[in-house]
């Protein structure tokens, strides 16, 4: 029961036009968010230029603005609609980036728009690679050995220190754009010349090529109740972007010790960061020992969470919205079973597999090798009783 503090009108940032790394997956999360708010009698305003998505249909949000997800347009809508709160986590990376801009430029403060769910400070802790490594270290956990660099010279020094091969990662990027493994200084410079064209922060990391890639969807409420709703394992190891990998739920090759250890680590980190709502955490797990690294945390709904929701029947976006408004995890009804609460980690008696779909002939002269930059344009999901069946 929320006795006070419930918002009256919430602005939701959608995900925008279809691109690689941002597509139909966010249609699902935004729609669920709107339904959750409406159930609580809250007015909803949606900004999303995508005319071809269910989310922008007439029967969902009270008001829809087919505008680009850009700071200037969002500000105009805020002035007109006067919402008292905003949801940033349901429109993927685009919405998050714009949300951070609005916060930093004090636009949200000016118009008294409260950020629901995970705070912008926490979002920045997960997006800014340097802040992220610090937070992980503070919690006594491990993340990939890395250095943040702002120019090519700094990068050369960092790579020499970490030792080749190294992973180059671009901060705030969509679908791993611009990132990849480089084996020597020449490849490093080539990669960075392109990277510094659209960002000023790059991470040089130890290469975990070949390590198992595992992810968990975690949910947390403001009373510190925290659970993992779904575990997933990528068939393709570290080095291939998750969006381009075959993903299986639940994890298949992890022992109970490994599975529950990663679960505890995730919960510990999410509690330390202060996420409220839903987030995704990715790990690299050694195939020859129980060593691990935390790769990243996405403090927002993602394509993995859309897959996880469908795989488990646990409506992550719906629950995340309720948590953002301020509900206690165990008082949110599970709308799928209708009998139990949302404080529940689904146990599957089947296997789910996601297979990416590519359309590479659309792009001229593109390298058809898979790597850490996402290239797929869609995905297919299968449910069955054995791995062979779903594949």
């Amino acid at each position, binding site marked *: 029961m929320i006795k006070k503090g419930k918002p009256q009108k919430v602005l939701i940032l959608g995900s925008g036009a279809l691109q690689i790394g941002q597509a139909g997956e966010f249609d699902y999360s935004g729609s669920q968010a709107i339904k959750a708010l409406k159930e609580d009698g809250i007015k909803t305003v949606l900004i999303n230029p995508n005319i071809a998505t269910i989310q922008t249909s007439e029967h969902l949000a009270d008001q829809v603005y087919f505008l680009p997800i850009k700071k200037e347009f969002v500000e105009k809508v805020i002035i007109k609609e006067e919402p008292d709160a905003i949801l940033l986590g349901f429109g993927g990376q685009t919405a998050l980036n714009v949300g951070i801009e609005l916060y930093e430029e004090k636009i949200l403060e000016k118009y008294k728009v409260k950020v629901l769910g995970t705070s912008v400070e926490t979002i920045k802790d997960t997006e800014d690679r340097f802040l992220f490594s610090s937070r992980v270290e503070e919690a006594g956990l491990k993340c990939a050995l890395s250095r943040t660099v702002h120019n090519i010279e700094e990068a050369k020094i960092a790579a020499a220190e970490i030792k080749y091969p190294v992973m180059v990662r671009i901060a705030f990027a969509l679908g791993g754009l611009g990132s990849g493994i480089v084996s020597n200084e020449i490849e490093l410079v080539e990669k960075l010349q392109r990277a510094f064209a659209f960002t000023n922060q790059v991470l040089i990391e130890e290469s975990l090529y070949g390590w198992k890639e595992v992810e968990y969807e975690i949910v947390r409420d403001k*009373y*510190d*109740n925290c*659970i993992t709703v779904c575990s997933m394992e990528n068939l393709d190891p570290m080095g291939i972007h998750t969006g381009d990998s075959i993903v299986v739920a*639940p*994890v*298949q*090759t*992890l*022992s*109970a*010790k490994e*599975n*529950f250890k990663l*679960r*505890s680590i995730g*919960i510990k980190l999410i509690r330390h960061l202060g996420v409220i709502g839903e987030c995704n955490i990715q790990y690299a797990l*050694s*195939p*020859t*020992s*129980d060593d691990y690294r935390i790769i990243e945390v996405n403090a927002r709904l993602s394509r993995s969470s859309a897959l996880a929701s469908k795989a488990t029947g646990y409506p992550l976006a719906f629950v995340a919205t309720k948590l953002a408004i301020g509900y*206690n*995890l*165990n008082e949110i009804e599970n709308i799928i079973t209708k*009998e*139990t*609460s949302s*404080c*529940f*980690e*689904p*146990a*599957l*008696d*089947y*296997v789910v597999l996601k297979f990416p779909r590519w359309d590479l002939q659309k792009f001229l002269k593109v390298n058809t090798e898979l790597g850490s930059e996402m290239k797929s344009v869609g995905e297919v999901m299968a449910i069955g*009783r*054995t*791995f062979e069946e779903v594949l």
Partner: protein
Amino acid sequence: MKHKKASLILEDGSVYAGYSFGYYGDSDGEVVFNTGMVGYPETLTDPSYHGQILVCTYPLIGNYGVPGKKVKDNVLVDFESDKIQVKGMIVTDYSFDYSHWDASQSLHEWMIEEKIPGIFGVDTRAITRKLREKGTMLGKIICGEIHEEEFNVEDPNIRNLASEVCTTIPKLYRKGDKKIILVDCGVKNNIIRAFAERNISVLQVPQDYDFAKENCSGIVISNGPGDPKMCTQTIINTKKAMLENIPLLGICLGSQILALASGADTFKLKYGHRSHNQPVNEMGTRRCYITSQNHGYAINSETLSEDWREWFVNGNDGTNEGIMHISKPFFGTQFHPEASPGPDDTEFIFDMFVRALK
């Protein structure tokens, strides 16, 4: 590869025909199901499954093989007891190939060594549905052809199962200065490990050992198989201990024994709670935890006396998940704070109990 036939026959006459893996031999017991998706080495060696045939709802079993028998502080690292405790294992898809850096053999090989039969190639969802509908049932595993014979399976729950799995002599695990008595009713190794990690010595004693006069900082009554009412001597001993102010912690069966010793009542659940994802709500707080559970009986909270309170309640079906005395350091948890396999959300119970030790 041609597999030999094996079938599961339930007491209502239904037959599930599949193939044999593990030991090729017949078996019988109470048929129960567990929904855990990982953790079969720990689950199979949990003494609480003594007398039971385990059906795994998760379809793919055996993926990561079975680890070796490493020992630390005199306790096996990767198993909950020294042998496989189930009478048999029923799965949908057994993986004859396994892949894991820590595996030393396959599940199939291990089960042959331990002489425990398994069946694969059956629809575990159908079996589970039946068990949920009708309640747990007695069953038989028959290898090869089925011949017409009488279904003569004895219900294991009429015996004192705890006495069949507990240690026969006291064993001391020396660690720190403080010592607790662990009343072994079928204890899982992770309870011993939990205290060892916290630098507390553990004196593990048989379930009927008279511990009331023993010098110690606290007493833990362990988990175990079967009906708590069969542990008559343990209940008598617990009543005596409760007259002193010595800190008591009951885990799973132990919690039920504590309740019975205090005058409350227990009952049999329709098909039990056996999983790693049971939500429990802590009464009087906004906290909820995900717990590991394996019990077929529960405390009837309406029969708790004036001095006892419900501490935890199951988030799904409202059954009792923990009890606490209002003035004395007596605690009981129906779930497994030591998990293994399972989430460690409630491991704090051990820290809390250690703080309460004399």
